[in-house]
């Protein structure tokens, strides 16, 4: 992974920069001891590491503003960091950068059930947002699988999704407003507790901008009333094509399940060996979950059963209890853990049009043989977001490189069939150099102009998102 040369001038001013940061923050909020900055050398993409020049942990919007104003004046790159769970290297430091962690910004600032929103500081974890309102019957909908650990700041940066997007949308559809600090220290409010923008929708631009436009310190999030109940059904098929056709038929029939998850045979076998969820041994498996009252659930599941039966399933298992529901979800939720048990793996995140599912799975299978690496597929089938898991051996020379090359080919395939490189993980450094596959020069140019406006010196989260050759003239 190519990264730009660190700015020697910044490195030379290291002591002075750290001293200035200490002037505006409490002593324990500035970390520059090399043994301690190592904690920030990588995120969830652990293959790439680089300790930052320093890390700061501000505890208020004012402190964030003071830090950014100093870094702006000193020309120091800043890498914002939520909980560091990015799988795309979104929080990977550069040697000349200051990590700005939001871990101390954790408060709930306002909870308003009449207007159905919660305002939080963005270091708060995703799950603890729901935790703050669930006893009153509400929840925050986006549910990335890292939700126990990941921060709202990172969710906004990457426009995180989850398993329930088909019905509830992703972060951008559930974000009402932010307090954001620009690179020069200016604090702006975008949106609020009201709906829609009065002028240009800058909030929509900020969500998913991977921390490159500003540091979001507070967020107003939409909360929803919890459904009366939810129940999954498990359906097994003897061919991927048939499972894909069944998904399409369910959607066409007017049912809107809250989740439709897909697993292929390698994934079913691995998770079954690991979690013993009682999955049938078949080519493809769907988990379909619906919501509502008991009667409403029964009606929707009845319809889904009718549709599934037309496709000759090898198994149709309707949950009859909480315990059975948990068991149906158990395998799916342990899929990544099961893979980790077998081997090292790389998790991809491309999205494809749902109709291309059988073709794409067939091509991945062929490529798997060409590259000599196994792949297991788990898939948010309702929205086309694929997570192929490529297995490799990190201790075997060349395996990581083969795996990365294979992954790149799969993502190119996703783009070829009308999809995209990343559905919910973000570009970061991981997919940065593949952006040319999806975007023409003018497409990237338009996106980079946005950064020119918000961060004219290109100091925020450097060397991410845009291919280095495309951004070379701007990075100074």
């Amino acid at each position, binding site marked *: 992974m190519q990264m730009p040369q660190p700015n020697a001038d910044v490195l030379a001013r290291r002591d002075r920069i750290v001293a200035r940061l200490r002037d505006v923050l409490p002593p324990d909020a500035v970390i520059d001891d090399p043994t301690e900055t190592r904690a920030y050398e990588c995120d969830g993409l652990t293959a790439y590491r680089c300790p930052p020049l320093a890390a700061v942990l501000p505890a208020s919007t004012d402190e964030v503003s003071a830090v950014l104003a100093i870094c702006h004046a000193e020309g120091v790159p800043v890498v914002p960091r939520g909980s560091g769970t990015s799988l795309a290297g979104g929080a990977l430091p550069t040697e000349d950068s200051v990590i700005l962690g939001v871990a101390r910004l954790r408060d709930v600032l306002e909870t308003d*059930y*009449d207007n*159905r929103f919660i305002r939080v500081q963005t270091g708060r974890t995703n799950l603890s947002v729901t935790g703050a309102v669930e006893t009153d*019957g509400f929840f925050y909908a986006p549910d990335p699988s890292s939700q126990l650990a990941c921060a709202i700041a990172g969710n906004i940066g*990457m*426009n995180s*999704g989850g398993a329930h997007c*088909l019905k509830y*949308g*992703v972060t*951008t559809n559930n974000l009402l407003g932010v307090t954001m600090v620009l690179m020069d220290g200016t604090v*702006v409010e975008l949106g609020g507790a*009201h*709906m*829609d*923008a*009065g*002028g240009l*929708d800058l909030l*929509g*631009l900020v*969500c*998913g901008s991977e921390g490159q436009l500003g540091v979001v310190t507070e967020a107003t999030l939409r909360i929803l*009333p919890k459904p009366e109940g939810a129940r999954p059904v498990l359906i097994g098929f003897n061919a991927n094509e048939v499972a894909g056709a069944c998904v*399409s*038929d369910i*959607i*066409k*029939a*007017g049912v*809107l399940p809250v989740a439709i998850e897909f697993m292929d045979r390698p994934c079913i076998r691995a998770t079954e060996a690991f979690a013993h969820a009682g999955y049938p041994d078949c080519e493809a498996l769907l988990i379909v979950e619906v919501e*509502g009252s008991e*009667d*409403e659930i029964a*009606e*929707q599941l009845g319809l889904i059963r009718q549709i599934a039966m037309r496709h000759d399933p090898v198994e149709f298992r309707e949950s009859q209890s909480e315990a059975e529901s948990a068991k149906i979800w158990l395998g799916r939720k342990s899929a990544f853990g099961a893979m980790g048990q077998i081997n090292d793996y790389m998790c991809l995140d491309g*999205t*494809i*049009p*749902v*109709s291309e599912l059988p073709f794409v799975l067939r091509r991945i299978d062929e490529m798997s043989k060409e590259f000599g690496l196994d792949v297991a597929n788990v898939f948010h089938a309702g929205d*086309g*977001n694929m997570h192929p898991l490529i297995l490799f051996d990190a201790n075997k020379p060349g395996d990581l490189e083969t795996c990365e090359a294979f992954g790149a080919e799969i993502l190119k395939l996703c783009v070829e069939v*009308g*999809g*995209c*490189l*990343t*559905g*919910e993980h973000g*570009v970061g450094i991981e997919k940065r150099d593949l*952006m040319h596959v999806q*975007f023409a020069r*003018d*497409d990237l140019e*338009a996106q980079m*102009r*946005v950064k020119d*406006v918000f961060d004219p010196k290109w100091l925020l989260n450097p060397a991410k*998102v845009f291919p280095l050759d495309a951004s070379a003239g701007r990075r100074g």
Partner: protein
Amino acid sequence: MRPVTEKELSEAVRDAAGPLAIRGGGTRPVGRPVAGEVLETGALAGVRLYEPGALTLVAGAGTPLVEVEGLLAAEGQRLPFEPADWRGLLGTEGVPTLGGMVAANVSGPRRAQAGACRDSLIGVRFVDGAGAIVKNGGRVMKNVTGYDLVKVMAGSWGTLGVLSEVSFKLLPAPETAATLVFAGLDAGPSVALMAAALGSPWEVTGAARLPDARTALRIEGFAASVAYRRGELAGHLARFGAAQVLEREETAAFWADVRDVAPFRGQAGDVWRVSVKPSDAPDLLARAGGAAMLDWGGGLIWLLQPEGTDLRAVLGPFKGHATLIRASVETRARIAPFQPEPAPVAALANGLRARFDPRGILNPGLMA
């Protein structure tokens, strides 16, 4: 000018000698009056892709909305955000287009539950002020590849680029629908009722208060589900009085009127659209005076005001924004139709326009 292909559109913008007034169907003359050569997008029409099994549609920006709605209805699907038709309200003719709808980010009553036009929009192609063709997003509903220009194009009223193609996420149309109507509630209790309904698990897809003080709630879904939910809601809200029920046909007509702001059709005066936190609505109604309609559970206020009124001066400071939707050209030149923004936010918006339209030729000043 009326380009027929995206390439022609690109050339028309690139070669423009002066300002362009961009027009879809010409049904929404909103914002500062724009002087410029008219550039019509109506010929950039046609559905490029419709996959009912994937809930996605891609179409040229000039495609008439009515054509798309017919196509979707035939498959039992629809655009989730219930786009409004403002021809009656604004006294315009012509045919609303997808591009115009996106440029105005027009959403109807279902916005409170299903999101705005911008939330269902998953891809755009447009021509920027220099004539460059730009694509962003695509035809899949989960996509975080690069910055999300899709959202900022929605509601940018042609000031960042001229849309040539738009893609949407769709939803199944419900089997049936019903409406509960509560009569005679003042704004305060009405908003409280709507909050209780929208905060319940019964998925209310419309919550509005008409100028005649009727408060209405809509439920949609499978027949058995609608029957169950309307019963539960009526019981849950009994403290607000007994509800009259509108069945399917009446429900469709009722919400079409809310969507299109029918109560203000043909009424003299200016029309303002105010977006606020719902519980702030009763106080703002009292400050504004005059006829008012609430939608989105109170989050959207439609106000009829005497001609030439500067509503923002009447309301004083509030959190949210007010847009002047219907007024004479003279009034729209004198009073800013779009909510003025704090200096740092305005600087960002102006910076974007300067970058996307360096010559300042795309609907110049419309949102100023």
